[in-house]
């Protein structure tokens, strides 16, 4: 047993100590009675008289500039008029405030006002906007009114403007009011309901850099709303400016070239991935989205058949068609299935068991080796070689060129396309991969899907000697790339092939704008209608600077529609450079 304290009664001491504890708590009750009951009214007055008002000062967002310093996103100052719900309680309050606005030429009924306040209400001490988007002139007029300062206060607001409107919409994105989901998703507690946040493009990608640091003004006012003193003031800090690689003049040229067409055009520096042109057509004007678009206009935008909100360059996936043949060629050469001396005879079709695969040229190409097969875009050559190569090795080389994965471009919403393959088909369709699938795959049809950005990146790798660069918009972002395991000799073979495409093959028209272009035409089968026309190429062919990819949805043949667009775009970029 435990040693007991038999010489005294522990429970007696316990009673004493307990009673001291319990009765001492009466002290707390007496204290509360004194402050809350006897002095209660006095403190209620103190609480309401010594009102602190917290005014959050929003910083202007960082500006966004193009590669030559032209502003693409800037801010203008407008004003919101705010009030605290605790000052707007009775119908009389609403009538007085709406009357005040009416006197100064701003139409507002007291019921509208009440509705607006109720909608924004979170708590009595959380300020709500009663009027938005006022000019400095309107605000200074209002502030002069003796009734104004009693409950209202102006709050400067920065409004985002995109001077170039729709021209670079898919790159810049836009800002808009933060949604409830976005608010809950934020861990850093930066945002409040009613804040704006980047919704897409650069605005979203670089939100944290662009948004700046909010300031805070704490003012103490008396019960009549008169300013007693400024207690605390922290200046808001403007967000960081961002300079982009995109060039607005070149972008305008792209707009001109793509006028009335549905599709995508992208051009970038082959060495460091600087994106100069990035156009998804048709485009949209981000300005109304930022200022608050009507529901009707918003649904019209979303329901537009041409889908202007869609970013076709990085979010549109298409079968690459014959433009993919460079990847197939790389696989064939690197896996030693063929060399420059391997000859395939093209009768205009390729028979695989009971199936018949046609060459685009029904009459056939005769004997073709690899350079000629690329030049003439001979399907049969690639059909035959792909069967020898096998899908697994072909997929391996597709992966080597970054197909099936996002390029890492610095705007959100990028898709990785579909590399497909045996496992994918088994998982997705529950079917085995057939040789016929490989044959289609070799010429960029079938299950294979790529974004125009991925295509440009593949061709940039051929242009720059084997580096798969990540495209970038932010000029301050360090270029990133990884090496493609393609031997110099084999790369030269393919480069010769695609140079011949323009010099004397299917893409001649692309080379008729003053510069030697190397590139490849493509026609992507479209189950929904007319085929898509593609062209990807770089220039100058002997010392490449820029790569460009174009897809025209429903454009038909790549050589006649897309080729000249790429030729003109590349020529524009190179001439501009020469001019400087």
């Amino acid at each position: 047993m435990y040693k007991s304290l038999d010489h005294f009664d522990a429970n007696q001491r316990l009673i004493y100590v307990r009673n001291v504890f319990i009765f001492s708590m009466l002290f707390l009750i007496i204290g509360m009675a004194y402050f809350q009951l006897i002095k209660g009214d006095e403190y209620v007055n103190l609480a309401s008289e010594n009102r602190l008002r917290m005014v959050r000062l929003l910083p202007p967002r960082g500006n966004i500039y193009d590669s030559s310093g032209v502003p693409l996103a800037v801010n203008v100052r407008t004003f919101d008029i705010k009030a605290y719900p605790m000052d707007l309680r009775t119908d009389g309050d609403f009538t007085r405030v709406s009357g005040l606005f009416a006197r100064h030429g701003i139409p507002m009924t007291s019921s509208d006002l009440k509705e607006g306040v109720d909608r924004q209400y979170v708590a009595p001490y959380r300020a709500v906007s009663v009027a938005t988007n006022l000019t400095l002139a309107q605000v200074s007029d209002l502030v002069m009114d003796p009734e104004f300062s009693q409950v209202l206060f102006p709050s400067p607001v920065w409004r985002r403007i995109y001077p170039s409107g729709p021209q670079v919409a898919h790159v810049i994105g836009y800002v808009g009011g933060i949604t409830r989901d976005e608010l809950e998703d934020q861990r850093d507690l930066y945002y409040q309901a009613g804040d704006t946040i980047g919704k897409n493009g650069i605005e979203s990608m670089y939100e944290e850099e662009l948004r700046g640091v909010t300031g805070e003004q704490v003012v103490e006012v008396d019960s009549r709303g008169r300013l007693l003193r400024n207690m605390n003031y922290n200046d808001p800090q403007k967000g960081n400016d961002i300079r982009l690689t995109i060039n607005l003049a070149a972008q305008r040229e792209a707009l001109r070239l793509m006028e009335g067409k549905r599709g995508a055009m992208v051009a970038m520096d082959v060495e460091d991935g600087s994106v100069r042109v990035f156009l998804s057509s048709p485009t949209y004007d981000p300005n109304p989205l930022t200022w608050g678009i009507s529901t009707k206009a918003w649904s019209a935008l979303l329901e537009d058949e041409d889908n202007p909100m869609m970013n076709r360059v990085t979010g549109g996936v298409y079968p690459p068609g014959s433009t993919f043949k460079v990847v197939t060629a790389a696989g064939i050469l690197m896996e030693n299935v063929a060399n420059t001396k391997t000859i395939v005879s093209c009768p205009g079709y390729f028979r695989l068991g009971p199936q018949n695969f046609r060459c685009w040229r029904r009459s056939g190409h005769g004997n073709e080796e690899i350079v000629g097969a690329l030049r003439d875009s001979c399907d049969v050559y690639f059909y035959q070689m792909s069967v020898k190569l096998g899908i697994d090795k072909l997929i391996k080389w597709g992966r080597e060129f970054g197909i099936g994965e996002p390029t890492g471009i610095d705007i959100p919403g990028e898709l990785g396309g579909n590399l497909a393959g045996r496992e994918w088909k088994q998982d997705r369709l529950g079917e085995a991969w057939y040789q016929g699938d490989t044959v289609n795959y070799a010429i960029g049809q079938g299950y294979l899907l790529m974004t125009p950005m991925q295509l440009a990146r593949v061709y940039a790798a051929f242009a720059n000697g084997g580096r798969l660069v990540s495209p970038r918009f932010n000029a301050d972002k360090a270029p990133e790339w990884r090496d493609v395991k393609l031997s110099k000799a084999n790369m030269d073979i393919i480069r010769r092939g695609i140079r011949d495409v323009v010099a004397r093959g299917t893409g001649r028209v692309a080379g008729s704008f003053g510069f030697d272009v190397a590139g490849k035409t493509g026609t992507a089968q479209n189950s929904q209608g007319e085929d898509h026309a593609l062209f990807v190429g770089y220039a100058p062919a002997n010392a490449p600077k820029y790569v460009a990819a174009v897809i025209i949805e429903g454009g038909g043949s790549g050589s006649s529609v897309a080729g000249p667009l790429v030729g003109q775009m590349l020529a524009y970029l190179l001439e501009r450079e020469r001019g400087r």
Partner: protein
Amino acid sequence: MLPEVGYSWGDVGSGLDKAMLALIGVLFALGLVSVYSAGISARTSTVAYVVRQSVWAGVSAVAYVAILRVGYRNFIRLSYWLYGATVLILVALDAMGAASKGAVRWFQIGPLSFQPAELGKVALILVLSRFCSRYPPDNLKNLFGALAISGVSVVLVLLQPDLGSSLVYVAIIFAILAVAGAPVKYLGSMVMTGIVAMPFFWKTLKTYQQMRLIVFLDPYRDPQGAGYNVIQSRIAVGSGGLWGKGFLQGTQGRLHFLPEPHTDFIFSVFAEEFGFVGGVAVVALFALLFWRMLRGAFRTKDTRAKLLCIGVVAWMWFQVMESIAMSMGLAPITGLPLPLFSYGGSSLLMVGVALALVQSVSISYVKEKFPQM
């Protein structure tokens, strides 16, 4: 060291003091309401505090149940080890504080921060309960033995510097010594010594600590600075009036008059919104809880358990008194959490552990009084 036999689910179920558990639950729920309210301010509105506090409550509940199964006796058995380990942690913390030239009161382990001073309260109670029942402080030798053992942690916490927690330690030590049978003349001498030592003690305080004590005596001496919090907290409580302003209707906390509304000044937030009625209810609930916590102490034959219970009650009592009195400007600001109310993981967990130990005393009594087969 073989553990003593713990308690089965059946023992725990039949011996559980359900009234005590209910009081704990109600107080925690009221606290959570206040933490929620404090989280919605003019600047941010976040449920993050409520979520984290609930997660910690879950952790504490698991610890609570585990301790009931193990039983308080096993903890008393291990008390010297636990206390030794705690002292080492406090030494390490003080060393870190010396290195960083600032107050270091917690360890950061990933996203969690842990305040060893909280752990120290439990360890101190366990070790003193054991020592003072084995060596009752009815002679000077035993008294100084108890003071030497417990003094180590008081000094270490004071060095952090964490004045508030060290005062809690003193309250615990004093209550345990009193119930363990220290003669009244000893207890009286200790109080006298404390009063005489005050001027010396004053000089060891940091300037900000001195300032807190000065503004407690006269908040209007520095109404824009150190006295500001006292004045504003008093306005918060006072303006609550009889019925309070209503849930989420308080303005003092949300307009940033109150610093740390979710921790130190949680009662101010509560009293502003729920008034005198709510405040009295909370004080009464705490009083009932303490009453109930001591029921087991009266019934058990185990002196160690008696001391354990009074130690835990002394701890909670001191923090309740300090935290609530502080909110009215009737005690200096120390930053002690209001048990079960204030937001804070390690505080909540350690309160849960201590309350489980007290509950375990009740369970052991029922098991020994009414043994089943």
